[in-house]
């Protein structure tokens, strides 16, 4: 049986509300890589990033396509990656998650979503204990 990994809730900004935040090593289509901290979010169909990550990851107009998204506050237009980047939890290097992130102008926080991240990891939220677990499938 696969080993679960437990992560305590953290705040991206000290003093903010602690949330289920996970750091993943993301390698963009330009071959550059870095840690992105995102909220593990079962409400996000796919992973989504603030738009500024597009240029850091090598995405251009040729590798993005407009896409309408829906959230509780209404709809908006963002840009879907056409070429996959790769995301790895540094402590679990055997699992590589291909992601076609939605890059959202005005977004403040990265999200690890359901149809990419949660296809590779089972997620359990323990809100009362302020922690969550991820288990490789």
């Amino acid at each position, binding site marked *: *049986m*696969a*080993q*679960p*990994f*437990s*992560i*305590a809730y*953290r*705040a*991206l*900004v*000290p*003093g*903010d*509300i602690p*949330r289920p*935040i*996970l*750091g993943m090593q993301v390698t963009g289509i330009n071959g*550059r890589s*870095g*840690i*992105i*901290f995102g*909220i593990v*979010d079962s*409400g*996000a169909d796919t992973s989504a990033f*603030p738009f*500024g*990550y597009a*240029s*850091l990851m090598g995405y251009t107009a040729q590798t993005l396509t407009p896409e309408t998204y829906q*959230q*509780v*506050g209404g709809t908006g237009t963002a840009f879907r990656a056409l070429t996959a980047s790769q995301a790895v*939890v540094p*402590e679990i290097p055997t699992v590589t998650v291909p992601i076609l992130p939605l890059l959202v102008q005005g977004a*403040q*926080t*990265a*999200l690890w979503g359901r149809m990419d991240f949660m296809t590779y990891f089972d997620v359990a939220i323990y809100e009362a204990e302020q922690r969550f*677990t991820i288990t490789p499938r």
Partner: protein
Amino acid sequence: MASTREIQREPIVTDDLSIYRGSWVAVRDGQVVADAIDPVELRDKPEVREDDVIFLVPTESGKTLML
């Protein structure tokens, strides 16, 4: 049943980020080493290393988040 392993126990940042809200920051060992409005401008600053963590500091402070 497989035992649970705790990971990522360290705080992401120990510095006060309130003055950086709305900007991109480069963080090393929990401390801000550089900031900029544009993430590529930040990445290309000489004081920023390839392995520094770069992220946008949210403009809003600890309010309820509805995604």
